[in-house]
């Protein structure tokens, strides 16, 4: 949770209610950094890996965008209220296990299995939210604890070897294409549009930004900030369930090894896009830009034949660069500038 000293009004320009042309300029500039990064990577890819601009690679990038993007939207909601969700990977894993074990490959049982997975995800999100709101546990600790807890539940339940299979009926969600574009990318687009509208055009969105910027002041103005924060954690968990369904459909197998990387990728995409780690700053458009940049970067590194170590190093370096840019004043709403303006040292 954010416990900043700035009044609600001080954070407002970061959100959609910022007035005037200055805000528009800020908004444009905030998108500029990730887009410039994307342009650099695309240029490097053109020079170093000529095969990068093929339909096959584009399909792969779009799939990655879909999978990372769905989780990144949920992560963005949590980041906007000053939290972080490290339990996303665990929820993805739990989803695939529930689908496999309950359905045992039978498509007729898929509907109930999805409802069970959504219920399980909601419980995880609610636990995260309650720990943060009611017990004032830092989000990092609370969500990491639930990550470990859920992993333990999965291991105790399945003893490391989930029985059953993923129904083929789920396959279109992971491998299907519509108008030549992988379905996961469409799903991400839909999720991003809905999130963008809620954040940018509704009162709920304004309350969410205000809560992230200054929870105490927002609460004093009558907003039930606890519900908003808990709601963001629940939304993040439910989107993780959706990502779990996409992944299960993509590979048709309970892949326990994969989901761990999605926690960090979701945070990385949001941060690279320019969403602030301190709450109250960022838009879904920035997350989309970050997701695209990260997916292109990962695909390019793979095309280069870079090893796992090199991929992690480059990804880490890009995140550090993004955070450094945020803090050095390159982006228009850096914490330093806010603090200076608000007189906080």
């Amino acid at each position, binding site marked *: 949770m954010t416990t900043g000293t700035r009044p609600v009004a001080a954070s407002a320009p970061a959100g959609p209610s910022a007035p005037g042309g200055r805000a528009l300029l800020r908004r444009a500039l905030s998108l500029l950094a990730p887009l410039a990064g994307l342009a650099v990577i695309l240029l490097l890819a053109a020079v170093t890996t000529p095969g990068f601009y093929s339909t096959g690679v584009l399909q792969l990038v779009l799939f990655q965008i879909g999978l990372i993007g769905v989780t990144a939207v949920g992560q963005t909601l949590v980041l906007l209220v000053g939290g972080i969700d490290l339990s996303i990977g665990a929820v993805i894993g739990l989803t695939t296990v529930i689908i496999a074990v309950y359905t045992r490959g039978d498509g007729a049982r898929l509907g109930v299995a999805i409802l069970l997975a959504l219920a399980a995800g909601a419980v995880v999100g609610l636990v995260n939210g309650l720990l943060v709101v009611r017990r004032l546990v830092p989000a990092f600790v609370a969500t990491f604890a639930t990550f470990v807890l859920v992993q333990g539940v999965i291991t105790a339940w399945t*003893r490391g*070897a989930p029985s059953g299979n993923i129904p083929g009926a789920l396959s279109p969600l992971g491998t299907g294409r519509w108008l030549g574009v992988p379905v996961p990318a469409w799903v991400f687009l839909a999720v991003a549009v809905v999130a963008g509208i809620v954040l940018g055009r509704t009162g709920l969105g304004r309350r969410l930004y205000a809560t992230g910027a200054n929870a105490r002041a927002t609460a004093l103005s009558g907003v039930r900030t606890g519900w908003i924060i808990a709601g963001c954690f629940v939304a993040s968990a439910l989107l993780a369930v959706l990502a779990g369904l996409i992944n299960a459909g993509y590979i048709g197998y309970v892949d326990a090894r994969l989901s761990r990387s999605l926690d960090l990728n979701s945070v990385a995409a949001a941060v690279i896009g320019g969403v602030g780690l301190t709450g109250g700053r960022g838009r879904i458009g920035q997350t989309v830009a970050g997701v695209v940049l990260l997916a292109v970067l990962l695909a390019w590194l*793979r095309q280069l034949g870079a090893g796992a170590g090199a991929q992690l190093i480059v990804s880490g370096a890009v995140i550090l660069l993004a955070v450094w840019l945020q803090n050095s004043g390159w982006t228009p709403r850096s914490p330093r500038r806010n603090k200076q303006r608000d007189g906080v040292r």
Partner: protein
Amino acid sequence: MRTHIGVSGRARQLRLPLAVGLAAALVAACGTEQEGASAGGEGGGGGGDCANAEEAQASYEEAWTETAEQLGLEDLQPTAEEVCEVDTAEWAAEPKQGDTYRIAFAAQGPTNSWGLTNEEAFRSHAEELGVEVLYASANGDATAQVDNIQQLASQDPDALVVVPMGEGITGQVQAAANQGIPVVLCAGRLGSDSGAVSTVTRQYELLGTAYAEWLVQQLGGEGQVAVLSGLAGVPTAEFQKAAALEVFAEHPGIEVVTEQYTEWSPTVAKQVAANLVTQYPDLDGIWSDSGYGDLGVVQAYQEAGKPVPPLTGDAINAFLKAVQGTDVRFGLSSFPPEQSVECLDTAMSVLAGEPVLDKVYINSPSFTHEQIDQYVRPECSDNLFVPSSLPDEQLRGLGLC
């Protein structure tokens, strides 16, 4: 289906004369137990006094010969390896507590179906033998295993069987050996200074070499090959890969166009293979160390509408189910989880003072696409490692069938 190395039986025939000779040597040396632990613990060594070298070496080469026959390989030369017989008379002992032996098992833990099957096979065999198992799970983590070994050693078991999670546990294994506990390394290995009496495992080099030779033979010695390994820096992956690259280097017609890691994840492998499809459209073969990886590779090629190149890996039921009825060519072998049975047998032989090999290289079935119907288990879980030596009832109990 587990196949014992043939020399074990022959070695036992030499038990009496060896025991007499060793007893004499012990009396002469008047060695302490701790020194004995150090001497007997040259799990990877043998040094200049390699006991019963000829017979031990023959057992080592037998695994290579059988694998070559099963995969139809014309030329599979064993890598240089010295296998010796270890005198275990100094470890011979009655149970420390009560009437039954207490064997500590520092297991990987049920983090996947391999770990689950590995420890279930161990427990079942312990029950058959009437020994008590002191169990600790590392959850796949070397750091956790360091603590596990300390905890198990503090209970003063008669012997310790360790499924090593990494080189980081070497100090604790040495400490346990120095404490007078005979240690058997199981399904993995440490450096020769670990103090372990014996190492029981499927040989990484055999798998890596056999897969590479099979691929070379399939390609007629010419073509582009992609090498898909598991996890960077993990011995199981790196030793196999290194052995394969040595084989490819011996064939000038083979070009290794890329080396990548699949993290033993079908999803990652599918993404890697989707890149291969676009980047190397003329790829002739894929060397892979994993059936999990192969599953992703096959899906990527099938979705791209391209024929799947011949590929290698270990035998996981999900892959066999995915390719049954297709024309995918593959050469598979296994790193059987049930090798823990042999580990326990070796530990019991040590406690009985019977000679054992310092390296017991497990023999296990290898097969190609031509024998798929013999090995696929459609009624069983994707996670089952095939062929499994566990009875069907037990596999059903574990949710694997």
